[in-house]
């Protein structure tokens, strides 16, 4: 009984202490950009008075939440279906970009020493190349001693935007992969073992001799994982560096991309890293609370203007200036109050 009384008091206490924190906004979705969003949130709070609560529940979750209007904005690594954007009355815009890198654990092979043409990478994940001393791999890697060791491909077992980007790349470079497996947040992997999350892939690669995996760039850099060189569209081998990522980002055809759903996979240019992608924000065009929507745009406006250095420090690629301006004008023309006036 006593406990119940105490509880009742505690509950009553909530009702009164729940002072409305005026500027709170909530977003949910993709896991990949969560660190940079939370870093932006920390710096933007004193500057704008906006308190962002971003939760990484997965891109699919982010799309569902914005369709159900349970959050102020959704976030997704894979661009949303054009038909769904239309039927859900949602504006999609890019927030930041990132790269996916390939990591290996082969005795004697050092950082960025191994060179992998994309079609061989696809063959490895398809299981048709199963030994590291396969003649095709040896051919591409003169000067590197490759052992007679079975290849153990490791992939993301959880549905993830990273897998979507990676399989998009494999589909772009291998017709076989495109027709037999395809690109999605999770696919029917022909070979190898799955691991949960970037950390799971990294740890499994670390534990298993002869393994190969793919992770977000931030993960490889922070944990000093052994990455490899990939061959880009210009048939040049490139190392995964910030310059290579930026080259790919600026080579993208932003102007013709509908709903900003730009494709940054396997871009032209001698120095472009082939696996780069943008991550997207989803915002209702008819917000039920225009004040909160305005704060979302105010937040990203601040992040575009002031957040580039933060993004780079966390291994992300900021949006080019021209794209930022295009996003700002889309906010102005697309997102309206019930009376038809722009929200922001």
């Amino acid at each position, binding site marked *: 009984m006593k406990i119940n009384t105490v509880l009742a008091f505690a509950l009553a206490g909530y009702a009164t202490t729940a002072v409305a924190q005026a500027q709170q906004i909530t977003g949910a979705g993709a896991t990949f950009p969560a660190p940079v969003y939370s870093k932006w949130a920390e710096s933007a709070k004193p500057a704008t008075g906006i308190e962002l609560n971003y939760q990484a*529940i997965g891109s699919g979750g982010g799309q569902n939440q914005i369709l159900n209007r349970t959050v102020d904005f959704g976030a997704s690594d894979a661009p949303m279906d054009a038909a769904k954007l239309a039927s859900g009355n949602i504006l999609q815009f890019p927030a930041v970009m990132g790269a996916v890198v390939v990591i290996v654990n082969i005795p004697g092979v050092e950082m960025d020493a191994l060179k992998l043409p994309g079609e061989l990478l696809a063959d490895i994940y398809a299981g048709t190349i199963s030994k590291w001393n396969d003649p095709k791999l040896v051919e591409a890697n003169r000067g590197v001693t490759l052992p007679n060791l079975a290849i153990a491909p490791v992939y993301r*077992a959880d*549905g993830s935007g990273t897998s979507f980007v990676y399989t998009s790349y494999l589909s772009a470079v291998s017709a076989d992969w495109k027709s037999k497996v395809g690109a999605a947040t*999770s696919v*029917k992997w022909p070979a190898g*073992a*799955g691991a949960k999350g970037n950390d799971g892939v990294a740890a499994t690669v670390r534990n298993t001799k002869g393994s190969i995996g793919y992770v977000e760039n931030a993960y490889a850099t922070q944990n000093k994982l052994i990455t490899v060189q990939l061959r880009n569209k210009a048939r040049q081998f490139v190392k995964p560096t910030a310059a290579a990522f930026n080259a790919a980002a600026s080579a993208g055809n932003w102007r013709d991309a509908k709903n900003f759903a730009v494709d940054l996979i396997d871009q032209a240019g001698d120095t472009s890293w082939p696996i780069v992608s943008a991550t997207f924000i989803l915002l209702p065009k008819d917000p039920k609370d225009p004040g909160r929507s305005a704060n979302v745009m105010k937040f990203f406006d601040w992040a575009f203007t002031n957040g580039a250095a933060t993004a780079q420090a966390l291994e992300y690629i900021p949006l080019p200036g021209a794209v930022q301006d295009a996003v700002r004008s889309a906010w102005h023309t697309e997102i309206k109050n019930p009376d038809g006036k722009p929200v922001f």
Partner: protein
Amino acid sequence: MQQARRTASRGANLGDFVFASLTRIAGVFVLVLLGAIIVTLFIGGLPAFEKFGVGFLTSTDWDPVQEVYGAAVPVFGTVVTAVLALIVSVPLAFGIAFYLTELAPQWLRRPVGTAIELLAAVPSIIYGMWGFFVIVPIMAQYIQPAVIDSVGELPLIGPLFGGPAFGTGILTAALILAVMIIPFIAATMRDVFLTVPPVFKESAYGLGCTTWEVMRSIVIPYTRTSVVGGIMLGLGRALGETMAVTFVIGNTNRIATTLFGPGNTIASLVALEFPESQSGSLKLSALLALGFILFVISFIVLAISRVLLRPRLKV
């Protein structure tokens, strides 16, 4: 006089009526609430059942790109890991229960018993992290290579231990599950062993039986049904475990042909794929259908354990 008694009994009746109704209402509430969960799952899974029919149960395909889904791989993984977990945990749990009831010195029984029960209080995400960071590396670097080298070439059992040594896989998942259900089975066994009337055991000791003979010929036959019931409850828990399994099973949608091979369970697959499933998609429906199938499996296991436990519950 009679009236006074009637009032008194009416007062008691009223109290009884209120209390009985209260418990009954709670019972119906829970039936409706929990029944609703099962029904929601079934309705949510209906599109997948309709699309694939009975083939959903037998198909080993899980291809989100082609939108073809089958339940055979996760159902296989769920059943195999749970059964393997039982094979490992039952002897261990039996040994612990035997030790705690017959062998341990009196002063040691409580602390050791509590420590074993504490294994049940460790949250499952912790089991997952422990399994992934402690057990998986040991499996990958020592146990699996050693077993593959020594047993892998033998006929018959050799093929069970093949494949690359990822450390993760069906066997690792089963081992973690075994650790998780040991405290449940051991506690049940200990409790039912204690229900054996001392007279029975003392008569056997009087005849010169050893401790082990008393256990084998008196205690086990006397408690057999309850022991099996307790084991089934452990099995039920192993079937639905999510986080601990997800970390260590290797998460592959193929039927594992070796014990070291990666696989998947229903709960693990649902947890992994759910965040990337869009509402209204066939994938989400297939996941909900899987959830429903898991309920059916637990239902069958529970029905068996009910039947086995019944004689003892009546006492």
